[in-house]
């Protein structure tokens, strides 16, 4: 059995045919191929079917509150820079409930990988519209069809200056796996929005729909070209997969005045009480 592979006999909570199954295999493979030490890998997840992913991978995890996984992940990577940190959840979790953290953590450029399962629908709460649901999609709440504009995470991330903006599709396992590896190796914040079908609640954005609406970027796209990246991000007819944008910038621990180049984790640092006592003078 490979590292990160789960050795428990467990009744997984996903529906048969869920895109989360292949995605789990993709993530385990990516981590294994990068030869990471599982004890140094931490997942931070919130609530939703996607956020259950860490349950089925052998690594540390903090499965916290709906929408807050990115905040927890940012703190983990800020206090122990030697960990490999992955924040993972669905479109509702990360872009809806966690929307404010999505925006502001991009500004921090924390050294972590942000995997968002984007199936354009709420699963665990049973089929309501999500921030990325396309207009006119009929849901259990938007019964006559979605009437609000969908959120475009790629365009938002590029506009916010995210240093790694990518899109994958769980139906393209090999390419998505390579994308995840690149994201983990990227210094700073890496967003991978991963399309995948919700077989139970989204009957429009199906496996076949994603297959026919997506294409993979080839070498003709220069990911350092922000304008080109934005153009791709804004194209909602032909959905580009691959690295749309990548930039080199100091990560959070490199720019925060606390570290000054010494990346010793906080738990290894000592407080000097004699220096604290100087405050009494």
């Amino acid at each position, binding site marked *: 059995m490979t590292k990160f592979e789960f050795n428990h006999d467990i009744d997984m909570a996903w529906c048969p045919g869920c895109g989360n199954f292949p995605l789990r295999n993709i993530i385990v493979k990516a981590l294994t191929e990068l030869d990471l030490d599982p*004890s140094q890998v931490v997942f931070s997840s919130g609530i939703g079917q996607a956020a259950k992913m860490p349950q089925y991978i052998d690594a540390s*995890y*903090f499965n*916290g509150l709906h929408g807050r996984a990115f*905040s927890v992940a940012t703190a983990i990577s800020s*206090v122990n820079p*030697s960990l490999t940190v992955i924040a993972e959840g669905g479109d509702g979790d990360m872009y809806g409930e966690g929307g404010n953290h999505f925006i502001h953590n991009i500004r921090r450029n924390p050294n972590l990988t942000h995997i968002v399962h984007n199936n354009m629908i709420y699963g665990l709460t049973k089929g309501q519209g999500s921030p990325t649901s396309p207009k006119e999609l009929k849901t259990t709440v938007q019964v006559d069809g979605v009437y609000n504009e969908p959120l475009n995470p790629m365009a938002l991330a590029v506009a916010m200056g995210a240093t790694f903006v990518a899109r994958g599709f769980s139906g393209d396992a090999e390419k998505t796996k390579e994308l995840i590896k690149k994201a983990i190796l990227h210094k700073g914040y890496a967003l991978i929005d991963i399309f995948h079908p919700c077989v139970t609640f989204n009957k429009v954005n199906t496996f076949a729909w994603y297959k026919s609406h997506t294409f993979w970027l080839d070498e003709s796209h220069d990911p350092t070209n922000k304008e080109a990246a934005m153009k791709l991000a804004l194209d909602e007819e032909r959905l580009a997969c691959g690295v749309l944008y990548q930039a080199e910038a100091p990560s959070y621990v490199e720019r925060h005045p606390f570290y000054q180049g010494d990346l010793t984790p906080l738990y290894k640092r000592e*407080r000097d*009480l004699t220096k604290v006592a100087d405050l009494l*003078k």
Partner: protein
Amino acid sequence: MHNSITIVLSGEAGQGLQIIEEFLVETLSRETYVFTSKEVMSRVRGGNNSVEIRISDQPIHALRYTIDALFLLNNHALDRLRPRLQDSTVVYGEAGFITDEDKEKLSYHEIALTELAKQSGNRLYINTVLFGFIAGLLDIHTENARDLIRNRFIKRGEETVAGNIRAFELGYDLGVNDPKKPVRSKPTTFTPQKVFTGNDALVIGALAGGVNYLAAYPMSPGTSLMMSLSEKGREHGVLVEQAEDEIAALNMVQGAWYAGARAMTTTSGGGFALMTEAVSLAGITETPAVIHVAQRPGPATGLPTRTEQGDLNLVVYAGHGEFPRVVYAPGTIEDGVELAARAFWMADKYQIPAFILSDQYWLESMIPANPVIPQTYLERFVVETDADYKRYAFDPSGLSPRGIPGFGKGFVKVDSDEHDEEGMITESFDMRVRMHEKRLNKFNLMKKDEVEPLVFGNQDAKNLLVGWGSTYGVLREWVETHPEADTSLVHLRQVYPLPASLEEKLRAAKRVVVVENNATGQLANLMQMTYGMKLPHRILKYNGEPFHIDELGRLIAEVNHD
């Protein structure tokens, strides 16, 4: 009430009241007992703010409502303070600062501060002239004052230092010869103490408790702690992050503890309301948290710059579900240091949220004190994990040893869902009961680490005053100066869980009066509920001000008359 002189400086935001306050407190505290606080409007410039300085030949711990000497810094500084004037109050200010009508009614002394400032070289030295004037009025040792001025202005060059010293001297000469000079009796024995604000105490305490990470969103009056730890953080090693909102702040604090930091957040009631889901998260994940809630009057935005003890219920009950927590409420500088440090130790030891519940009045009062640096709260509870580590193991100690990711060979699996020993989501009813009981049993384990109430006065007294947090000073001074009232004080520093020794004290007293800076008697209600006893005698104040020593006597007489 001890004999004392109360002087109040009244001006507007941006006029430099704080500098005069610092100068006066620094110099006065070297030769006499002093207590000072301020009250400000919620604005950056303008309005009307005041600083109150009370001095005495005896140790004092509270403010007085009536004013002996009032200094007006502009022509709209009088009105709000009018109710606090008495016949003997002397009002000082420049010509034109009060109306002719008021001039008739009040004992008003014109002092030409602007003119003296100009004489000393620059009209900007006006605050130093006033400092000098008050120093003269109170016969303060001038050498201390000169040192202070030098230290303060040396960065701006010798010329500024010399000008300010001239300004001080011109003011001093005028003050020392003032015909209405108050008579100040000096202490017979006096050991100078350093002056601290409540906020200073929390900074020192948090550092002594090992704080190395703070995430917070600004909200008065909780923000000062964030600013101070940012500044001190550079020297002592505190990573400070300004979060995008309070929800992020406490979730970041959770992430930081999970990964091995000693982390805290600071906020006020409204911000804390946003954190409550993460308090519950700390409860089930058994991730420690230290949360400073600096109270101000609510509901909602309320009175942003004023004081109240209105959030005890909020803090005690915050978060859905049932789980243990501890709530400390410092009432002295010494306790501020001690309890802030202890909060980190308790949070770490019992894997619980630990609260420091303060308020605007205590945080911003300047009080002479002798705090000590606690030496034991850096004790670590984090374990190095083995390959078969289980985060939520049922351990004979009652506490599951807490590992952190990356330290050891194991995985640290933490879950906000109900979980099994390993940290995996479970829906087993049996496991739920065992985990829930393990968490709630920490209430029992924590009993051996209770913080006893402060008790003051004759233990056999018939009457008992009960208070918590910032009211300590005023209650203590009242008990101390009213031996004939046959009253002692029990003052809670740990307000939740209520310490076991409290019930007996309450039952032993013939009459219990609970004093709180809120409208409903939140502590009294908590004690009633916990002990099944009635506590109808309450003194409650909720206009946004703290209790004044001279009003407390009247309120106690009233409640005793019930």
